[in-house]
């Protein structure tokens, strides 16, 4: 069977999402978990661009708009996440997720 380019794009983003998912679930280093989540976010952005490129859209810039706003929110999320990593490090002197099990420091 022959795959359309849109299907290839969707397969690409699915695979990337799953790589990020496995990384986020399996690693115990907080920074790597955060990077896995970022990878999943990027895979979602890929879908926006793929559907914008390969399907008729009412407005010519819709997909790009979605991706720009999504990237902006992801940047805010990354900043807060890494600040949390540094806060955890100051509390327990390492960033292993298994040891970050107290709500009150």
């Amino acid at each position, binding site marked *: 069977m022959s795959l*359309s*380019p*849109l*299907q*290839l*794009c*969707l397969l*690409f983003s699915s*695979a*990337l*999402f*799953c*790589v*990020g*998912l*496995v*990384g986020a*679930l*399996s*690693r*115990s*280093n907080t*920074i*790597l978990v955060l*990077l*896995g989540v*970022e990878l999943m976010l*990027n895979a979602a952005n*890929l879908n926006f*661009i*793929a559907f*914008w*490129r*390969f399907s008729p859209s009412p407005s*010519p*810039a819709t*997909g*790009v*708009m979605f*991706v*720009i*706003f999504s*990237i*902006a*929110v*992801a*940047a*805010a999320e*990354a*900043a*807060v996440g*890494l*600040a949390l*990593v*540094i*806060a955890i*490090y100051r509390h327990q*002197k*390492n960033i*292993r997720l298994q040891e970050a099990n107290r709500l009150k420091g």
Partner: protein
Amino acid sequence: MILPLVIIALLTIAVAAIAMTLRNLIHSALLLIGSWAGIAAFYFWAGAEFAAFAQVLVYVGAVSMVVLFAVLLTRRSRADLEVAPDAIGRGLGAMLAGGAVLGVLFGAVFATRLDVAPTAAPTASVRAIGQQLMGAHAASLLVVGVILTVALLGAVVIASTDREGGKEDAR
């Protein structure tokens, strides 16, 4: 037209997968930055130059620097860069969960008829994007600006709060 997509996809996925299995934290971070660059290349391929530039500026430029700073700030010696081996059971569980999700997604993509008519690439010039941002999406743009401001201020507060001795001195 298909071949560049396949090359970009395979390279990006391979780089990301290697990054998620490496032991060295710096190497993982650098490889993930490489995979973000691959995603920017995909945006270029799809004709979304503005999104590609945004991806390069925000991810390859800014987020990567923040990640590298976090890596360097949260270690005490060179040995800390080597991540200790993770639990086998958790790794297997993660692979199982990821494989299940991958199977469901691939099955859905293969089972869906997506043969849309090959449309010409929509063109989104920078002028059109700017007019959309300042016109139809002006309110969203303001909200995103507020979100970014609040998030960055909150990040500073979270990272600078010191609770030594039970009191916070950065408030």
